[in-house]
């Protein structure tokens, strides 16, 4: 191996730059200018990109990977229904048997994460007045039928709901006499129909358990044309003033409620 000679090295570097300058001078003027301009533009773009695009952009896809970590770091407010039972197992047991078994604790008591972290400092209270329950139980015709509803303006005004109803195991203080307690939409249609004075029990037989366990014990329904014909056949006696048809010849392929809605017959 040759000894390193600084002079030779310098002169060879000098020679390289000289040759480069000579070649550069041989270029036409316009090419020189364009080359310089291009170099400046490329440098500016590369600098701007490194400064503007975050370091972990594009690690997993066309986004900043650490954005997910930032989103995940958001604090939790709702603790979830499982954790409540760890301390309030007595309430959970009451609730598990009642109509509110699928209603999470935080629906009424509000977000509980802070309470689970410091039980003393953060106390949760469900609404004590009449402001909470009607959010679900106020009568709205759009609500699914069978969902228990009241009109709060006329339902024991001013009295707080929890005075009569235990929210963890809600039951009416006495079994409702009226079907309208749950079947509000039907009751309101019937009230303005010609069947207003026909009692629900005239057509439906409701077993007593239906009031306590409505889905397991369903009320009966009339099962044939003969039932309506009891009043509406032109042979029916003692039913003057009631619209009557000849049951034998009147649309014999159908049962009555395929065309007529018994809770609001079309003749008004």
């Amino acid at each position, binding site marked *: 191996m040759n000894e390193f000679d600084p002079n030779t090295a310098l002169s060879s570097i000098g020679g390289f730059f000289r040759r480069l300058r000579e070649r550069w001078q041989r270029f036409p003027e316009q090419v020189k200018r364009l080359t310089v301009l291009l170099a400046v533009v490329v440098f500016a773009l590369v600098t701007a990109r490194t400064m503007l695009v*975050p370091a972990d952009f594009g690690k997993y896809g066309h*986004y900043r990977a650490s954005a997910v970590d*930032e989103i995940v770091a958001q604090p939790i*407010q709702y603790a979830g229904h499982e954790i409540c039972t760890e301390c309030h197992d007595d309430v959970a047991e009451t609730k598990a048997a009642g109509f509110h078994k*699928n209603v999470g604790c935080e629906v009424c008591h509000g977000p509980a994460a802070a309470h689970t972290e410091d039980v003393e400092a953060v106390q949760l209270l469900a609404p004590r007045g009449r402001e909470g329950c*009607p959010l679900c139980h106020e009568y709205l015709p*759009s*609500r699914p039928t069978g*969902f228990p509803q009241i009109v709060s303006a006329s339902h024991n005004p001013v009295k707080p709901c929890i005075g009569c109803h235990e929210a963890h195991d809600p039951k009416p203080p006495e079994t409702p006499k009226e079907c309208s307690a749950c079947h509000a939409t039907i009751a309101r249609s019937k009230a303005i129909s010609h069947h207003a004075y026909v009692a629900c029990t005239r057509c439906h037989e409701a077993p007593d358990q239906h009031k306590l366990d409505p889905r397991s014990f369903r009320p009966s329904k009339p099962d044939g044309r003969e039932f309506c014909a009891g009043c509406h056949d032109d042979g029916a006696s003692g039913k003057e003033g009631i619209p009557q048809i000849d049951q034998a010849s009147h649309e014999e392929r159908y049962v009555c409620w395929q065309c007529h809605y018994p809770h609001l017959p079309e003749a008004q």
Partner: protein
Amino acid sequence: MMNKTAPSVTGTSPQRRSFLKTLALSFAALIIPGIVVARDKLDKVKDWVIGDGYRPADHRWGMGLDISKCIGCGRCVDACKKENNVPLEPFFFRTWVERYRILSNGETLIDSPGGAINSFRADAPEETVLRSFFVPKLCNQCEHAPCVQVCPVGATFSTPDGVVLVDAEHCVGCRYCIQACPYGARFLHPETRTAEKCTFCYHRIVKGLAPACVEACPTQARVFGEVEKKASPLVRFLRMNKIAVLKPFLNTKPQVYYTGFDMEVR
């Protein structure tokens, strides 16, 4: 052997061969780096762990909404606003509930006062109501999300588990995604001036909790779970019900599924 018997083509053959070789090489140079980088990213995504051992590549989230169970109480809207610090003004929502009333004259009334955060009022329209029901709405977490496509800075993106998220740090607040969303699920946060929307409560689901709206729904009208795994409440929901999605003709492939759907629902 073949070359000896066909001397007439030896003159042109090397030229053609070298041309084809160069052509193949140039195409390979164009395509192979792309394939290598994409494969590398796919492998990286598979190994991605968020927070406490949550692997997004192992999940695929969706939500089912049973219209016939919704009572319009608005507890989901309330819970969502509390969980996610959504401004209380009545026009910023990550989720909201609409009331549909189809009248006997063929008209359809749709309202959502304050997003239904305080439920609804029983005001009777003049015409007879034929059908009426509540429809909860939220971001549909589309598989082909238009909002992701239009974001000019890559601030909105789909995670490997199918949730569309917004990077609030990177968002420039141009509102293009708000325009692009066919479901009106996005809004501009009045303080941060960045786009906001439902995240399926991503900070909750990575920890094994259900989204706040699902937690707060008293009638279980909202079902949350895996779209593909066998034992998931959502898979059962999808198997047991007749399913519809909002605006299927847009080919956005929503991952929010409805049952009890009416043709008037838009």
